[in-house]
């Protein structure tokens, strides 16, 4: 069940009304009810993988309890490593087994040994990378005595499986989400309204921005050798907007949905394309994953402490692992490597924390310097996204070479597509994001003080655009991760 489908449009109101009309007496079953709804939501995709999700949940729940009850360090370590190995084992089998097998096979082939290794014909369970990381953070936090294990199984299961975040995050932390799950929730009118606004904006990003840009990006990336440099450059630009609209749109719908149930999820995006350097970009892009890697990989490795060599090593490790998390392909690894390269100067010159606040805070326009920095950072991310989108490393290089020639200055051609319409839509989108950049999401406060007629007319207009541009639905990109 995708967030941008009619079935979700029916599922959400039904669950919402049942959830809040249970009455005060039944508040105790709020969590079991949400858990059942979440499992139903997941089972709509493929009920067989529900057992994998349940197994992972039971394992981490039980491991948490056993670690706390362990009387010796050895036992604690045993349960800790059991959970880590099994969790990463599942992820390895479903996501990375074929990649390693084929890579090993090709390596042997290059030395003249022809081998036919066995590969798996399985689909990747939706959300496995996300719920595995949920579980891992929980187990690691207990191991390091940062939190106590959750003894209520239903509450813990809901922490792992809460349907808005189940399939593509945000990757939650027990310290943030579990206390909210454990507390009884009362209906909050303002929060619910904000939730609906965030869902509306998320749908706009997905249906109007991402799905429309996808059509242009697909033209450029499919048969890229036949396109001019300008078409390829615009194609890369469209993919840059596509992936942002797609994933941040998904996150907005997830966060908005959670708000309807009285729960605040971790923010995942904070206007990353308004960043002035790559370090800022990574503080604003997929925040829940970046902070996960920071807390559970980068800092344990030494972070920015230690010698220059250690710092450089840590930067490359975290970005290459981050790339590998996205998918078992060298394109993702190179994407991670490029980002490490881009961020390296700011780490070495200690400028990586120069831009902590949003650009032009309290002002309407950025300075020329800020604008230049934003454009430069945007171009760098654009370049890296080419690897993320390409089918292979060779394809990515062909794409970049195809872009960098005299045809870069010719008129771009997207057969049967109007650049004017998509251009206007993107301009409107960037404008609204710019206006709302100091808020959690662009529509958080936009127009909330305007008369109802104006405010609602704006929402109707967004709704109309969503309806008008619907019909070219593409699956959320991050579902595959």
């Amino acid at each position, binding site marked *: 069940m995708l967030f941008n489908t009619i079935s979700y449009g029916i599922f959400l109101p039904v669950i919402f009304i049942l959830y*809040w*009309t249970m009455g005060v007496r039944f508040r105790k079953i709020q969590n079991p009810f949400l858990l059942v709804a979440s499992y139903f939501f997941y089972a709509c995709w493929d009920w067989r993988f529900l057992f994998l999700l349940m197994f992972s949940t039971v394992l981490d729940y039980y491991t948490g309890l056993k670690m706390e009850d362990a009387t010796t360090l050895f036992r604690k370590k045993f349960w800790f490593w059991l959970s880590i190995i099994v969790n990463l084992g599942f992820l390895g089998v479903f996501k990375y087994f074929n990649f390693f097998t084929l890579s090993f096979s090709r390596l042997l082939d290059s030395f003249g040994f022809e081998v036919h290794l066995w590969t798996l014909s399985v689909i990747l369970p939706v959300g496995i990378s996300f719920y595995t990381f949920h579980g891992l953070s929980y187990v690691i936090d207990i191991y390091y005595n940062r939190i106590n294990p959750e003894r209520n199984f239903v509450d813990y299961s809901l922490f792992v499986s809460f349907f808005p975040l189940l399939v593509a995050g945000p990757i939650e932390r027990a310290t943030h989400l579990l206390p909210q799950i454990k507390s009884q929730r009362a209906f909050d*009118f303002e929060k619910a309204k904000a939730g*609906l606004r965030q869902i509306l904006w998320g749908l706009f990003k997905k249906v109007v921005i991402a799905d429309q840009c996808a059509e242009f990006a697909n033209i450029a990336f499919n048969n890229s050798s036949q396109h001019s440099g300008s078409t390829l450059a615009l194609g890369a630009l469209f993919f840059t907007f596509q992936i942002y609209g797609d994933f941040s749109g998904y996150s907005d719908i997830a966060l908005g949905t959670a708000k309807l149930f009285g729960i605040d999820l971790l923010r995942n995006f904070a206007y990353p394309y308004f960043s002035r350097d790559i370090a800022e970009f990574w503080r604003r892009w997929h925040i829940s994953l970046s902070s996960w890697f920071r807390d559970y990989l980068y800092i344990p490795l030494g972070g920015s402490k230690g010698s220059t060599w250690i710092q450089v090593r840590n930067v490359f490790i975290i970005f290459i692992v981050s790339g590998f998390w996205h998918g078992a392909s060298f394109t993702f690894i190179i994407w991670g490597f490029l980002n490490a390269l881009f961020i390296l100067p700011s780490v070495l010159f200690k400028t990586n924390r120069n831009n902590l606040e949003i650009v032009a805070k309290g002002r309407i326009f950025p300075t020329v310097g800020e604008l230049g920095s934003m454009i430069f950072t945007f171009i760098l991310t654009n370049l890296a996204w080419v690897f993320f989108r390409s089918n292979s490393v060779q394809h990515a290089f062909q794409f970049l070479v195809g872009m960098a020639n005299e045809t870069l200055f010719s008129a771009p051609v997207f057969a049967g597509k109007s650049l004017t319409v998509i251009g206007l839509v993107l301009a409107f989108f960037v404008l609204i994001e710019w206006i709302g950049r100091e808020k959690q999401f662009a529509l958080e406060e936009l127009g909330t003080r305007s008369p109802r007629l104006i405010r*609602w007319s704006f929402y*109707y207009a967004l709704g109309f655009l969503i309806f008008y541009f619907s019909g070219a639905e593409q699956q959320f990109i991050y579902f595959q991760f």
Partner: protein
Amino acid sequence: MNKFIRTLLLFFAAPVLLVMVVVGLYLKKDVYMDFGPYPNYSWKYYFQQLDDLSTKKYLQSEKNYNSFILGSSRSVGVYGCYLQSKIPNSRFFHYGSWSESIGAIHQKLWFLDSTGVDIQNVVLYIDTDNTFHQDGSSFSQHYIFTGATETMYRLKHMKTYLLAKDLDYMKILLGMDVHGEIFPNWKSDKITNDCQHQCSAAVISKYGFRNQTHRDSVKIDSMLNVGFLYARKNVPQNSGDQISEIEEIKLAAISEILKKHHTNFYVVITPLYDQFRFNTRDLNILKKYFGNRISDFSGVNSFTNDPYNFPDRKHFLPMISKIMLDSVLNEKDNTRIKL
């Protein structure tokens, strides 16, 4: 919570009201003619499926037909009323469709057979480019073929129409004039369902003639000049193998139905602009099931050589159908086949 629900209801009141008005207009206009009966079912709007309209018309009729014309849009040139004058005691129904596949032809014959119709005569048009290129699958939309419920069938039509996001669609609902491709506005015959004309002595008398105006000729000249009506090689070329195993099963089933009814049938392979000839392997398969009732007009011949016979490249003039049918009817015994 109550305040929230009230606000939501108020917010959605305007769009819901708008949707209700649009749905009301849709039901009133009934563009797919789902809520008949109507006196006739002509192909008025481009988005209507002729196959669907023909089925509706047949179901609304007294069902006293004993003869049927089956095939793709190329069969539009077959005049049921003319055939009635040639084949004694025949009462033709033109079961028109677009891009008809062998699967859909079988489906229609099976339906007629299963409802107890005495199938005395059948004219079956087969195309080298359409009939066997769809794995025998049928694209009939009517619920009696798809197995959908009547309600779901109507809902599907409504959803397709209202989500089309085409200004002309809204204009139609509002009763405004629409022009061009979306509004062919054909007038079918009330009895035979002949697609583009209403039967009369005058129409039949013009059937064998080119009937092209100067404007038509200019249009074809222009299509020749721009290469839309491209130059053919004028050498015999076979179409590739087309009839799949599934399609052969459908052919066998059609043959069984025709045998069961001792049907007097004519299988006509149509002449097309590309001049591809129906290939020998497939022709032999057809012969296996239809014997000598096949007339092959595909390939390079006097019909296909003249570009003026193809006013839009895809279809040939009704006159060509008349000449072919005359030749077929003269050659063959027009009585029911004895086993």
